[in-house]
């Protein structure tokens, strides 16, 4: 409790990061309470109410605050539900990447040897591919869908966490407290989990936060290309794609989900960078 209060106080010293956190929490709240706060069903087709503009434009109505899309589906409700998809995909893919990459990194960095060699070469191989093209290839091979999307994102996503953890473990391993633990006869498992892990977890948290925004962008890109979440399930990427053809007569269909995506990713990144500044002792003194 004391630590989180201290953390918040320090974060307040960095207004950009603090706002980032607030907005992220706002989006999470929106995602969690989507069924309560969204005014309509996100998949209800109403062909009599197609292409209605947002309420502030002529022709807009208060029952569809942000207007409707080409099938008359309520844009505000779809954006609210879209936050669910984006955040779920983001947190799940980062979470799985952290666990998978982290465990491999801890083992490889601590024990080294042939195991480390093999994993490192595999990681190098995966790093050689651009992320998006790699994900497109996997999705085209496995077909679209939620589970496949998470798999495609984590298939390469773990590598960065692996490299980070492995490097940190190798640095920590040479420090005196690890040597002391070894000298006391503490088991390897306890040394890794009890001694080393608490000392490197903050850098994993920072990287995880920064990757969260990236994964959300990736999900939107794949959905935009028609490889991710399939319509009519609301995902911002596929909404932007669906609105692309209507930019001239109904700009809001593509633009508003785009703005929702922009704000979320921007704020996650601001928060992530603030977190990084806080955890870096050299920057802390200023």
């Amino acid at each position, binding site marked *: 409790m004391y630590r989180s209060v201290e953390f918040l106080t320090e974060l307040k010293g960095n207004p950009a990061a603090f706002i980032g956190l607030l907005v992220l929490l706002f989006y999470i709240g929106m995602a969690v309470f989507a069924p309560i706060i969204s005014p309509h069903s996100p*998949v*209800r*087709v109403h*062909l*009599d109410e*197609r*292409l209605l503009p947002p309420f502030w434009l002529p022709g807009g109505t208060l029952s569809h605050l942000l207007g409707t899309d*080409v*099938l008359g589906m309520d844009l505000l409700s779809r954006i609210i539900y879209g936050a669910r998809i984006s955040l779920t995909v983001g947190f799940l893919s980062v979470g799985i990447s952290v666990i998978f990459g982290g465990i491999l990194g801890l083992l490889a960095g601590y024990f080294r040897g042939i195991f480390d060699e093999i994993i490192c070469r595999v990681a190098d191989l995966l790093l050689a591919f651009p992320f998006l093209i790699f994900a497109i290839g996997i999705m*085209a091979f496995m077909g*679209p869908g939620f589970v496949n999307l998470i798999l495609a994102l984590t298939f390469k996503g773990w590598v960065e966490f692996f490299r980070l953890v492995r490097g940190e473990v190798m640095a920590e391993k040479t420090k005196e407290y690890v040597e002391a633990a070894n000298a006391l006869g503490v088991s390897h498992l306890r040394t890794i989990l009890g001694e080393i892990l608490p000392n490197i977890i903050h850098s994993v948290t920072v990287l995880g936060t920064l990757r969260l925004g990236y994964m959300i962008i990736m999900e939107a890109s794949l959905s935009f290309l*028609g490889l991710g979440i*399939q*319509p*009519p399930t609301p995902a911002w990427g596929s909404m932007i794609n*669906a609105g*692309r*053809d*209507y*930019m*001239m*007569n*109904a700009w809001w269909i593509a633009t508003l989900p785009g703005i929702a995506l922009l704000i979320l990713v921007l704020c996650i990144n601001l928060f992530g960078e603030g977190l990084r500044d806080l955890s870096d002792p050299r920057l802390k003194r200023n």
Partner: protein
Amino acid sequence: MKKRFSQFAVLFLALLIIVTAGCGTPQKVASSAQGKQLDGVTVDPNATLVVGLKGPVLTFDPANYRDLVTESVLRNIFDGLVTTTPDGKVVPEIAESWKAVSPTEWDFKIRKGVTFQDGSPLTVNDVKFTFDRLIKDGAINGKTSPRKGLLGPLKSIQVVNDSTVRFIFSSPWPIFLPMLAHEQIVPKAYLEKVGDSSFAQHPIGAGLFKYVKGNPNSQIVLERYDKYYGGPPDIPPVGPAQVKTLIFQVIPENSTRLASLMSGDLQIAQAVPTDMVPQLQGNQNVVVKMTGSTQMHMFEMNVKKAPFDKVQVRQAMNYGINMQQIVDKVLSGYAVRAAGPVLPSSPALDKSLKPYPYDPQKAKQLLQEAGYPHGFSLVIDSDAINQVVAQAAASDLQKIGIKATVRVWDWGVLRPLLLKGERDMVLTDWGNSDQDPSDLLGPTLRGGGRGNYSFYNNPEVNKLLNEANLSVNDPERYKQYGQAQKIIYNEAPWVFGYVMKNIEGMTKQVVNYRPSRDSMLTMMRVGIKAK
């Protein structure tokens, strides 16, 4: 890269010269003095006409593709024995006249004085060579022309004398003439000299425009062929093209293509989406024109697999999807509903068939009878273009208890799965440019047809279609098609769909252009208003 840059630079300079030539006052007077009258308007003979395409051109070889956009560009470079008017009437082009010698033999007399764009005369040998290349196995670089299937039972071509060729069929083929309009004549001597691959990059035809340069994925530049023989006498005024330069610009993105039209970068844009029509109509410089098209859209259901193996379920789908609302709302009314499987504009249409009414109660009842009182899960396959219609249909089906979702595919990935019978329901379309059912029902609803994704195979329908295909007596054929339509209507292997309008936009400077039923973009008698 450097080469491409210099190509663009040359092109830019050329455009600049054309533009400035039109701007200078002395030239302006000269050009309007020379300008011909077209449709009561003086046109600029040195004008450039830029047309926006919705997709890339696949090749410049008229024997080596199956694609509508490619054909619509190629028909400006190449001429065929016959062609079609924008309304779909077959008229002579390179052929002067023809007659059926017997039900399986047709003689075509070739017009005199037709030359290819390299100056060589077009002879009967070129005609024979062209069609041999289309129907002989392995004739194009060891591969068989993908257009072979479009020539049906054509067996061989004989040169009768120096102005007549004879087409010999293995069986009578009633739709030969309209199908012939899709094939263009290539120069034998030039093609044999340069080879198939080189010809596809530097094509020479006997058409209105000669190929100058271009990249099939972005921009194709054509120039008027001044020694053109004049084209079909049935489409006046006979003579060379009315513009000097014709440029096809590939702009797949709808909004970009239409923005280019409104800003004047394009003079004609094809494939205007229905939702954009009011926007374009509100623009002072743009005219929207439309015509009926010949592309049938329908949902095909796999009758080999449950639940669509039951006829009640298939009928329930027809009652449960509010197709009239889709036509009126999603397609803004720019489509015509089809009651059965035949184009509403076809002479073979059975007018006694009325579209299935929207009746969710009846649909639920039929589902109950078929043993699906609680519906079932269904994935409707679609391509990106038609996905909005698929989603609207899915939402209707949800109202009768069917858990329907939509999956959008790349056609190249989806088609093999469809052919294997792995999918349940697909929203697709089939082009039927001659409007005769043999070219629509034959491939899509006869057992073993190449586009039969529903796997519908009714011996009685097969027999009727085969008989109609062999007869040359139209009233009798139409009777057989009528019977087939009734059976298909009742057995409902499709959710019967709609035929879109073919909508194109053009600037007010364009003279004498209107969209064609078959979506061709032949700039035969089209001009640009003189300034």
